[in-house]
């Protein structure tokens, strides 16, 4: 996959992950707040693909969830001066003092594709290239679907979509 197709594909993945992260029901953004109205943490998620063998959407979301669960947020010393309303934030020097992010509710992406009437999950690169239609679901651990995106030139009728949803649920 080269050239502008690759660019579009990676942008699509970035967009779906972005949607999941910025959703208050999936990821509690208030845990990134340091001082209300003054400071907050900015989180960058950079994903480098070392080898593409199909099913990149799912792999990226797994990697993101794993990485965020292991993120160490440095401990801070906050001085909030009530009279002058000045806030000073100092990062703690001790590298062993840190907080963690709560990603228990973060959904993962599952892509269900259709090849010749059969629903496929976790496709390899060869299966990907023959899949005409696929739906990517963002599904939370509780089972509710938060994100759905259809990709590919083929068409799917309602029955197909419903059964694909069930497949993704079980997976």
């Amino acid at each position, binding site marked *: 996959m080269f050239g502008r197709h690759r660019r579009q594909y990676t942008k699509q993945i970035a967009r779906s992950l972005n949607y999941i992260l910025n959703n208050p029901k999936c990821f509690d953004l208030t845990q990134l707040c340091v001082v209300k109205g003054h400071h907050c943490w900015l989180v*960058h998620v*950079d994903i*480098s693909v*070392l*080898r593409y063998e199909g099913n990149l959407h799912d792999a990226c979301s797994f990697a993101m969830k794993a990485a965020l669960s292991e993120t160490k947020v440095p401990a801070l010393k906050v001085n909030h001066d009530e009279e002058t309303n000045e806030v000073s934030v100092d990062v703690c020097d001790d590298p062993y003092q840190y907080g963690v992010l709560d990603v228990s509710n973060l959904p993962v992406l599952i892509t269900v594709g259709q090849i010749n009437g059969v629903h496929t999950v976790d496709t390899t690169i060869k299966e990907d290239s023959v899949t005409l239609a696929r739906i990517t679901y963002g599904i939370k651990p509780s089972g509710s679907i938060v994100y759905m995106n259809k990709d590919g030139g083929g068409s799917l009728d309602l029955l197909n979509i419903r059964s694909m949803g069930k497949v993704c649920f079980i997976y």
Partner: protein
Amino acid sequence: MDTSSPTQKKKPNELTSTLTTDYISGFDLISIEGYRQDGRKPDELRHFRVSFNVVSDADGSCYMEHGNCKLLATIYGPYEGESRSNQEQAVITCDFSMTSYCVSERRLRTFGDMKSQKLQMAIQRVFQQAVNTETYPKSQIDIHLKILQSDGNDYCPCVNATTLAFINAGIPMKDFVCSSTVGYIQNKCIIDLNQQEEQQKSPQLTLTLMPQRNDIVALTCESRVHHDIYNDMLDAATSANLQLFHLMKQAVINQLKTALHV
């Protein structure tokens, strides 16, 4: 680096000064016992680890960890070049990129900037010399380099990793190509500089060598080196490259042994 004290040693080029007792506090790049900040002796290389065949659909690939520098080198080729390419020799192209997280501050411009382009051209020139390009006329060989974690100098680990990737690809070369930096701090030549040591304003050389032929492929110097210490630095760099060569050869032999189940 703001941990360095402003009252550090006098310029090392001034051979008349006695260095060791002239400065107060701060940190010594070489301690009194003779160890550097990361615990190495002045003539010791950083920890070296190599793994081959990392990308199985490339013709050759090598993942290298040299100290804190982690990078991935992949080789595609030789394959049919464009029609206007050189008719008698293979053309070698190099593509260098970093990840956003390779240095401590997140880096947005990961490819195409000045440093990357300089490095690309340098590596392309080095390997145009080193590879037996006459055996593959009208073809093209692609080198792809990706830095996953950077520790100062990227050029040297890149050259070493590319050599090993070429060997993994089975493309014949005239010799190994090894590269190492050498600096001169506190009256001693130190080899294989890491980022902290490189940022000091001390004389530094980067030597790229073909160890068995004893041919210098490239020698870069972007600082002031006094000619009295020049020969010592070159000797130190040569011995550093020979050490690297032994490590690389050992890695290749181990890989062959596992591949042939010996």
